[in-house]
């Protein structure tokens, strides 16, 4: 096949590109320039499209022996990922931008462009697997569960999965680094990137405050009584306990937790720990990575964070929304997060959480 290898300048995508070449594909390396004004150098584990990263990606492509190009996707990234991230926070939800980037950039803008140019698919260094079975090509967890990235890929449609190649899903990260070393790739020991790539300082709250302002608003308890003030509701997360600065203690001295963020009234609601308990969730705009989920209750697992646990549940479709009922409740669940359903290691589909109970 003729494929585009998305190369970030990190070790994973470099090895993925090398493996794709060895698998017999005709590979062209492409680095996505996502920042309109990229920084010159990486700082620690943050940022993923500095000029230094694009040099690392180019060097890896040269060592592997494949052509290399840089595609300017800064505008698409800003409109599809950064703006969405801000809008979600402004609406009181907690988005996952990596998921949005896979959905709108890597397996949409890039894949569409690649296909139009006569390529068959996109290779990435994600830790995930695909399998061909009775339902066609399906998405599965990586062998290395600690690095598994199937959660952030769960937004891909079947057509997108058809055009995706994940060469690293059968290997652990440790072995990938060793392989990079053996292949003479200088990025073998480059630190993993964490956090949000477009917030290079790592200070999410500060970054949001600069863009959404810091409108002071009330912190209330469940009866609606004001017990404190906040500086920007979106800088709080559901389940947060520290840094609330509350002046009115509870009667029994028990701690309070953030239960809810109400953007319209700019209010943060706090309450007791047990109020955080969630036993069911509903998600909108479901996407199926394989056969569609029906209204018939089915046993499986739901995951609500990128590296969170898989929770046993019963799931089904109701009024076009994906519902998951947990076997045992969990504490603290924000709307805006993705709920991803697994059948064992297979990704069934995902939806954006819009209501919890």
């Amino acid at each position, binding site marked *: 096949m003729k494929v585009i290898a998305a190369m970030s300048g990190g070790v994973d995508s470099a090895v993925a590109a090398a493996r794709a070449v060895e698998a017999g594909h005709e590979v*062209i390396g492409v*680095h996505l*320039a996502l920042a309109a004004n*990229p920084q010159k150098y990486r700082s620690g584990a943050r940022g993923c499209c500095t*000029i230094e990263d*694009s040099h690392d990606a*180019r060097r890896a492509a040269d060592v592997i022996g494949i*052509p290399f*190009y*840089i*595609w*300017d996707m*800064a505008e698409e990234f800003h409109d599809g990922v950064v703006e969405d991230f801000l809008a979600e926070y402004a609406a009181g939800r907690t988005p996952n931008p990596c998921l949005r980037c896979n959905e709108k950039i890597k397996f949409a*803008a890039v894949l*569409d*462009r690649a*296909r*139009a*140019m*006569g390529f068959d698919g996109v290779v990435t260094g994600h830790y995930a697997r695909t399998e061909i079975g009775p339902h066609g090509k399906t998405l599965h967890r990586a062998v290395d569960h600690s690095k598994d990235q199937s959660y952030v890929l769960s937004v891909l449609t079947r057509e997108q999965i058809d055009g995706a190649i994940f060469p690293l899903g059968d290997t652990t990260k440790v072995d990938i680094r060793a392989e990079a070393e053996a292949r003479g790739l200088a990025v073998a020991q480059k630190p993993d990137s964490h956090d949000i790539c477009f917030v290079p300082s790592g200070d999410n709250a500060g970054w949001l405050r600069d863009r959404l302002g810091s409108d002071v608003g009330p912190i209330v308890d469940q009866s609606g009584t004001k017990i404190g003030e906040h500086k920007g509701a979106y800088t709080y997360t559901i389940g947060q306990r520290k840094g609330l600065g509350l002046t009115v203690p509870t009667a029994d001295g028990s701690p309070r937790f953030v239960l809810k963020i109400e953007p319209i009234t700019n209010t943060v609601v706090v309450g007791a720990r047990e109020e955080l308990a969630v036993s069911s969730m509903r998600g909108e705009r479901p996407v199926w990575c394989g056969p569609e989920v029906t209204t018939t209750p089915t046993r499986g697992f739901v995951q609500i964070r990128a590296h969170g646990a898989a929770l046993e549940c019963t799931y089904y479709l109701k009024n076009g929304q994906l519902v998951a009922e947990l076997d045992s409740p969990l504490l603290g669940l924000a709307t805006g997060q993705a709920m991803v359903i697994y059948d064992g290691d297979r990704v069934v589909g995902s939806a954006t959480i819009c209501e919890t109970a």
Partner: protein
Amino acid sequence: MSIYLDHAATTPMVDVAMNAMVTQLAELGNPSSLHSHGRATRKTLEDAREVIAKEVDCLPTEVIFTASGTEANNIALKGLYWAGRAAGKKLVVISAIEHHAILDPAHWLLTHEGAEVIQVPVTPDGVIDLVFLKELIDNRGQEIAVISIMHANNETGVIQPIAEVVRIAGQIPVHTDAVQSFKKTPLSFSTLGVIALTLSAHKIGGPLGIGALILRRTVEIPSLLHGGGQEREIRSGTLNAPSIIGFAAAAASEHYPVDEITDLRDRFIAGVREVLPDAIVNGAGADRLPGIVNVTFPHTQSDTLLLLMDGAGVSCSTGSACSAGVHEASHVLLAMGHTEVTAQSSLRFSFGATSTTADCDFVLSVLPDVITRGRAANSV
């Protein structure tokens, strides 16, 4: 199939240059030394200087060797500005289509050295606006420290009326970046009347890493590099004898067949117009260098086209600069009236001494499919 149509970026070294350079690499002696070894190197090096002087029609003493065309441009523009500023002149005049090796030092003079910079606009065909220049000189000639206008543009090949510029400029020092013109079109330092002119070896079949500033005898300018006082104390540093000798050998060789390359270019343009009638040849109405063709392919993006061309075995370029690896719209095409979008839909094909009719025809054979895919990618 691997076709090289990027000779304006760099072109193969000619055999005589490579041989001369290799021979000199084996020789021992710093040309500044007084002993027999030094004298031997100096003799060969000064022979080379005379060859280059003859080729560009200047005096040997007017040749100042540098490590690149970029360095020569920097020495000329900064040096002439500082010399002018000492006499109270702070205006730097360049054209809107200069190479970054002039644009960027001019910008640096503006941000760091108190210069005012004015860019002379160009016509839709990419020729500088002489009326604008004349008015500027009539109004503010006393303030101008230096005028720098390239001899021929590297992206479009459009040749600029430098003799006219010199005539209009009168006593104002004029520098011209002639990196693309040397050996491709008639070029005479003494006839042009400029005070300074830039050359580069690797554009004419010489080695990389060597250039020259032709600077009129008796002109004194501050230097960028201070040290051993070589090259009229304007460019200190041990002279790179092997590269200079390779440069001279390339300059003396008649390896650039102007007529054949012009025919090849015209064959290519005719072919492009036949298969893609909506393609626009930039600067088509102007006098141009034999080897450079710049074409706008509407509804495409240059970076996509480059990838597809490369995949088809064709090395060409946009001719314009990258910012962090991302292609920027060419300032040259923008100055000629293109929009950001159409400027980003353009490619430069540049022919050289080794180019053949078969190369030209092969590119024409792959072009329709590349453009079709490029348009498809542009519409998703």
